[in-house]
């Protein structure tokens, strides 16, 4: 019998037809899409801000980060509130995703390092490839994807 060790839970979401995963430790909550206040002259990646119970939450466009074309919001569009750590202090950001799928568990030995060629975006964004049944999901390094430093690149 196989002893399950070092498994971690991941939240999966979709961008176009691709499935991505985020470690649930990083996820605070999932919000329905709501009106976003735009910031004038901000880069397209920085969608704007929303009022999260009296605090200002910056909202970032994940599609834009991965070079996908902008599409109108649907009923499935969600804002995933993430707790990312950039340098010294933790930071809350909202990431817009096309749809949230499910929470899955992936054993550590089933996570393979990301292939260095053949992916369309920066290597440092991907923590690894998790094998779920016969498909692979990309596990995101959210600290890098949504860092404030990368916002202007």
């Amino acid at each position, binding site marked *: 019998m196989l002893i399950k060790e070092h498994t971690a839970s991941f939240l999966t979401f979709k961008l176009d037809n691709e499935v991505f995963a985020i470690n649930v430790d990083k996820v605070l909550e999932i919000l329905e899409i709501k009106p976003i206040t*735009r910031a004038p002259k901000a880069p397209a990646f920085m969608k704007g801000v929303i009022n999260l119970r009296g605090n200002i*939450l910056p909202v970032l466009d994940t599609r834009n980060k991965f070079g996908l074309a902008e599409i109108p919001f649907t009923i499935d569009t969600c804002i995933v509130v993430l707790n990312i750590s950039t340098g010294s202090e933790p930071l809350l950001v909202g990431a817009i995703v096309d749809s949230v799928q499910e929470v899955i568990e992936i054993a550590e030995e089933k996570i393979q390092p990301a292939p260095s060629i053949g992916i369309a975006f920066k290597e440092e964004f991907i923590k690894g490839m998790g094998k779920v049944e016969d498909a692979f999901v990309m596990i995101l390094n959210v600290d890098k994807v949504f860092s*404030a430093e990368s916002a202007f690149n």
Partner: protein
Amino acid sequence: MDNFKIKYKEESLELIAEIEKSLLLMENNPDDFSLAEQVFRAMHTLKGNSAMFGFRTIADFTHHLESMYDLIRAAKIKTPVAIINITLSAMDHLSLLVNSENIPDETTKKAHEKISAEVIEIISRFDQTAHGNEPGQAYKAGTVVPENNAMAYHVFFKPHKDILLNGINPLYLIEALHEFGPCKVVAHTGDIPSLEECDTASCYTSWDIYFPGGVDVLAVRDIFCFIEDKCTLEINQVPGHHSLMDTPALPVSPGILPLPEGDKEASGLHTKKYRISSIRVPSERLDSLMSLVSELMTLQAKLGMFTEQNSQLELLAVTENLEKISTRLRDNAFSMCLVPVENIVTPFHRLVRDLAAELNKEIEFSTEGTETEIDKNIMEGLSDPLMHLLRNSIDHGIEDPDEREKSGKPRQGKILFKAFCAGTSIYIEIQDDGKGIDPGKIKKKAIQKGIIGKDDLLNDKELLNLIFLPGFSTAEQVSEISGRGVGMDVVKRKITDIRGQIKINSAINAGTTITIKLPVTMSIIDGLLVKINDDDFVIPLSAVDKCYEAASVQLLNKLNNLVVFEGEQIPFISLREEFGAEGIISDQEMVIVNYDEKKVGLLVDRVVGKFQAVLKPLGKHFQQMDNISGATILGDGKIAMVLDTNKVVEQFLYTKNLSICS
């Protein structure tokens, strides 16, 4: 216990700063003997605190210093510069000791021994001279008088019954007498009535206290000076304290319980607490208070909006009252967060003194308006830039004494630190009468560094402002003091971070003045709520000059973006266009804002009205968006961005310039 340690540390560092300040003053006013007194008192407190918290090393070290200043103040002599220097280095050492948690390393230990030895040597020299000239003055508080002086004091102290009601604890007074040496205290408790008749708020006890002589009778009387009319007090000098000290304590008469005594202690403590006129509050608590007040203001706005929609008389009255109270609460909470500029300036005296000495320059540093108060969060961001500016003034501004003499100036250079309040802003100025900044030199440098082109025409003011650009440093030689790669650009950025502005004025050979304009507070601003393309924006009222309906003036020349208003030509920016909104709407409104000393019109869709904006940070991601200085939440939960009008205009000009060039 850790809590106490933190408090001890805070207090000690404050005391050390206070001592430093007095020392520096002492150097300039050697005739002011009260300064030695101040130093002595601060040292005494420091010693007491250290001993109380068990920091023996610090307490012993301070004890020697204290004795030294005790001698100085008693002898009423000018404090020699050598002693001031030693004390200053002792203060550095002390703050090191107070700050370090761990056991000091070898170098610290050596420094400790060296300074201690120096101080002890001074004391012994003093003692000799003092004994030779004025033996009467040479007493030392806190030490037992020499054996040959066999006089002792006997104090009979019988406070009036109602003394506790005045908030005085007689036990503290008796404790104070212990300062003069070992005391023998005999309490007379015979007057205490039986428990049923005993009023716990009254004092029934009287005391006989014996302690060694050698102190001035006035010093003894001083201890009781506040309650002389509230007690029976006899102070006698009696020979031979030894015999008295040896008398066994009187047996406590039977039937007297120690209970009332304990009660008195408690009530005494209680009244003492009541007298505390200021308290220390951790700044996180103030911050959370401020954010709560901000929330309240937002809620208040919401209620105001709701009331407007449902105008019921009772609701209206409640809303109005709530508004009054919350405004007062806000003002109160604000004033709690204000600290005088003084706090930041004190270390600068030391900085100037040491730096001037190091660079062989003679500098008189004076301050004005240091009682001006400013938000503590702003203050925190201000320390580094100010320090840098001062260093600049000392290092690059003020010339060597010889050089100054040659150009017909007094050898001693002057630096003036001035703080004042005007309108809703606080101004801080650093003036020096040094060599000033040569715009020609800046121009050469800027061309050399490729910041400006050879043929660019800039006036002197614009040239001066170039020094705030990244990668610009005019010092011909990078010096230890102000050439550490942190340039004026960092200063400017730091000032901008706290929503301040920095300006520079300079005349060759006459000096440089740097003016920093700061908001009084960071968290709430008065603003003008406007709509642009259905989005809400807040324009800080401090920047707004006037606003009017654009329909009433002819949009004179759309191509040049100029309007004529009150006989003046004013350039304007259509924020709709600027922010990339499509379509044109009629009946727009114009908000005229001040940009530098010029006026610029901002064309907005609609002016909604005055709005008190609680500034919320936008977070790291928006930090580089400098046309927005924050966001605020409106009564209906929507978010309005707060515009930084200066930056909006700057960006507009920048893009215009580019489009013309390309």
